[in-house]
């Protein structure tokens, strides 16, 4: 067993999908099996990595044997691990959905790009080097854009174009920040930087540039203009990937930078992020409420839910460990719920040939598993118990209340109400007979179950808050000075 423990599962988690993607390019006919094998392998590798981290604490691997700051280190603590688990599980669910979703012609296009995206995400969550993060960020962005445009329909092309420009702009701003940090402190390794940087003009400018760039890529209001058209026009599994995982990538980098580098001196800036998050909740929810199509509704819901993630910044003063735990938990919860929602929306589109909400026509009877998936995911998005969304919201509310942040608490409550409004709008019509009956196409059972299982995951995660916080605590034990603030449940 210990030999299994010695394997560098982190490297495997990056290499495996890369190899799979390359194999897809070489043998297009084998795309689907190669894809499924790689994704399953990644899940196993992440499980191995998780085991290793539980046993040995923080994972660090010096690529090339040089070690930071000269070389690049792979690095995983509890926070990274949770993001990796999120990616692996949600990716697995979406992959099994995509297995039936794409025609053979599209499958050849989808799988290699998705595998490269998966590799990029894994590499990103395993990175501890701000320039390496830039490369993985770009790789993520290009893959995401390529997937968005997959249908070749005009709205998808427009959405992808807007998305590409936004993501490139975001990356450039981030890279400029990297340049300033490097020239200020002489390293791109996060741990080294953390020891060296002082709040001076260059660091502040880097902070502004990187935050703005990453906020743009995460679609923080008002930089969210690109998200709804892209996420709504992409094929359903791709929308799920984008909303569940891709926006989390840039969010994770921002969080990491904040936790390790900027958090100590950037209180004012964190207030600004929190304010924008609150605005995002209100604006995104109101927009979602106005939509007449499911996918746009779900896309705007993502804009709103991203807002919740940013509320962590002003509330983070309670201690980094708690902030990281809350952020990881919220991100995970949203990833499960939102992917389930997009997949369910895809089923409904396939089923009725459209995604007009008012014409759902008793979908609840004719497509029960799908509507159940949508509803369960919706429960989590609304933040109603028993679900991970509820737990996440509870943690945030509790933090807000203990710090006297009434404004944020009220925004969260209102956001939950608005979310209930837009989700039950869909469900209400799903129960109702439409005036004109519609023809329907069969939906493969595998696709229904993929959506449902992800949604059930979003519910079950609600009972695993203690485990998530225990994982976060893994690295805090090593950073002993913060161990005192860890919650032990």
């Amino acid at each position, binding site marked *: 067993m210990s030999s299994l423990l010695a394997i560098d599962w982190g490297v495997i988690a990056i290499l495996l999908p890369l190899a799979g993607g390359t194999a897809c390019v070489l043998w297009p006919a084998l795309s689907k099996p190669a894809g499924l094998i790689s994704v399953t392998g990644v899940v196993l590798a992440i499980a191995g990595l998780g085991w290793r981290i539980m046993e040995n604490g923080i994972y660090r691997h010096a690529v090339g044997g040089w070690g930071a700051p000269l070389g690049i280190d792979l690095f995983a603590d509890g926070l990274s691990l949770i993001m990796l688990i999120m990616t692996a599980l949600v990716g697995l669910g979406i992959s099994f959905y995509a297995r039936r979703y794409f025609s053979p012609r599209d499958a050849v296009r989808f799988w290699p790009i998705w595998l490269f995206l998966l590799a990029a995400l894994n590499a990103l969550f395993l990175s501890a080097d701000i320039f390496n993060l830039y490369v993985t960020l770009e790789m993520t962005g290009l893959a995401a854009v390529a997937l968005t445009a997959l249908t070749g329909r005009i709205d998808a092309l427009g959405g992808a174009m807007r998305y590409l420009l936004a993501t490139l702009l975001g990356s450039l701003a981030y890279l400029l920040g990297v340049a300033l940090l490097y020239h200020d402190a002489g390293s791109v390794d996060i741990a080294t930087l953390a020891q060296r940087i002082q709040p001076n*003009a260059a660091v502040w*400018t880097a902070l502004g540039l990187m935050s703005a760039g990453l906020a743009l890529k995460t679609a923080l209001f008002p930089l969210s203009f690109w998200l709804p058209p892209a996420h709504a026009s992409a094929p359903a599994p791709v929308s799920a990937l984008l909303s569940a995982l891709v926006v989390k990538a840039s969010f994770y980098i921002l969080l990491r930078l904040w936790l390790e580098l900027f958090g100590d001196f950037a209180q004012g800036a964190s207030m600004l992020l929190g304010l924008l998050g609150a605005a995002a909740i209100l604006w995104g929810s109101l927009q979602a409420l106005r939509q007449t199509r499911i996918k746009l509704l779900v896309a705007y819901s993502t804009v709103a839910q991203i807002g919740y993630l940013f509320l962590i910044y002003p509330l983070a003063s309670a201690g980094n460990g708690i902030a990281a735990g809350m952020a990881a938990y919220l991100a995970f919860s949203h990833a499960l719920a939102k992917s389930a929602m997009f997949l369910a929306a895809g089923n409904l589109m396939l089923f009725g040939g459209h995604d007009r909400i008012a014409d759902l026509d008793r979908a609840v009877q004719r497509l029960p598993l799908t509507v159940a998936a949508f509803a369960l995911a919706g429960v989590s998005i609304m933040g109603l118990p028993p679900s991970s969304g509820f737990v996440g919201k509870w943690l945030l509310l509790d933090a807000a209340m203990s710090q006297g942040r009434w404004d944020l608490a009220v925004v969260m409550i209102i956001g939950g109400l608005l979310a209930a409004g837009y989700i039950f709008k869909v469900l209400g019509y799903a129960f109702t007979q439409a005036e004109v009956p519609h023809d329907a196409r069969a939906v493969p059972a595998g696709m229904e179950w993929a959506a449902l299982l992800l949604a059930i995951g979003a519910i079950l995660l609600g009972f695993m808050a203690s485990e998530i916080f225990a994982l976060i605590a893994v690295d805090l034990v090593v950073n002993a000075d913060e161990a005192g603030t860890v919650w032990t449940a």
Partner: protein
Amino acid sequence: MLQWAFDTMLGFGLLWLAWRALNSSDLFKAIVLFIAFGLLMALAWVRLNAPDVALAEAAIGAGLTGALLLAALARLGAMTDQNVSGASAYPVPSAQPPAGSHFSRGLLILLLSASVAGMAYAIWSLPSYATGLSMDVAAHLDDSGVGNPVTAVLLNFRGYDTMLEMMVLLLAVLGVWSLGGLQQQPEKPVAAVLETLSRFLTPVFILAAAYLLWVGADAPGGAFQAGSVLGAAGVLLLLSGWRPRVRLMQWPLRLALTAGAGAFILLGLLTLLLEKQFLTYPVAQAGRMILLLESLATVSIAVTLAILFLSVSSGHKEKSGKGEKK
């Protein structure tokens, strides 16, 4: 003093050209100005003692990007010609009136001025002497297997970045392929002079690429530069009407395309197995391994760039040979 004057002029020249390129009324002119801007950038790299970057910039930044832009513009002109109206080819909906009211434009200018001032201040406040990682690089150069520090960083110290870089290139091709081909366009007859030119230049390009690759170990040059020169040869051939046979090219093409990425992956696995350390070369073998990696990467880069050019310039997607089953 003379140097200062030159650098100042070059700096302002860059800014001026960029401004002109971005705001000229005619798109063709804009692209030509942009290419000129790229060449000036190459000069700036030389002034900054960065010959490797200068080579890459001249070949990729100015050369291939320029070719891509021009090809796309030509396609765009032809397309809007066919699809919309009988407007002339080049001035495609020229310089659309910039969006936004006077107020918002004023606000934007104000914001941008503020941000440039802030950035300038931040840059200015940096210490005037800093070595960065150059000491570390110099200390380990002997163990890296190559003598050119830039190559050492690219292929050894930060080889992992370069590995992901190869994936980005592959991803670009996949992305362009996944869009599907454009509508076929009738092939135009190619000028005899161009054909001769390409026939004459191709061997020279190949030779130059091989030289850059070889010399990259110890002097400016390397896989990216060599690959882009080779890619340029491909572009030239494509321009002069050369089209590889679809059936024959399927496999070799895909192999060439993935050679660099595949080499990195295999080497990564191998080092992980043998050395228990990802992408760690044994010091004695490092030079050879890097050369091998670079050679395969050069092929991949060249093919990638040529395919990208082809995809943008013409409707042919058969060449790329998407493995579709009818």
